[in-house]
């Protein structure tokens, strides 16, 4: 196993940690926090695999996930806050 593969397995292990709070019926903001961490970590894992395989189409998907994914999250956060205010 090379250094990159070892780091990749470490990243996958760290990727599982935020998934547990998303399964609990907790506060919506804790679930949002956990899912934003999952999004960032998954795109980093994509970038790591694209470096290992030297396949830059996957790297492109990782970068698109990084830039568009969190933007969508912000809109969702504002929507949830507005729904919370109007008792929706």
């Amino acid at each position, binding site marked *: 196993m090379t250094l990159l593969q070892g780091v990749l397995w470490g*990243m996958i292990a760290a990727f599982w940690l935020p998934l547990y709070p998303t399964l609990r019926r907790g506060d919506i903001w804790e679930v949002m926090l956990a899912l934003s961490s999952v999004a960032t970590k998954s795109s980093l894992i994509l970038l790591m695999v694209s470096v290992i395989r030297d396949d830059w189409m996957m790297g492109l998907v990782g970068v698109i996930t990084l830039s568009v994914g969190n933007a969508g999250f912000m809109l969702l956060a504002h929507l949830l806050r507005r729904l919370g205010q109007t008792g929706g």
Partner: protein
Amino acid sequence: MVEVVSGIGLGVGLWFWFWGTPVLLTRHSILFKLHHLSVADTLGSMAIMAGLLVRRPREWPLLVLAVLSLVMWNTVLGYVLAYCASARQPVSVETPDGPNH
């Protein structure tokens, strides 16, 4: 040399990930968790990408774009989540003439 510098970047990044992510499983306040997670995800991911950039310098446009969008969006998302999560608790400020609702 490239291997060493890249290994250091990847190692520091992974350490940050494992430093900040377990806080999500504790009972601290959401702002405490948000702080640790923002540091872990932003700084850790930047260190990992620096390690990757050292290994693949010819792909620098894609990796620099990833770093820039990570830094921008993660920071702003952290602010939005902090604002939204703390906006629901009414804050009563003690002023000389009584609580200010």
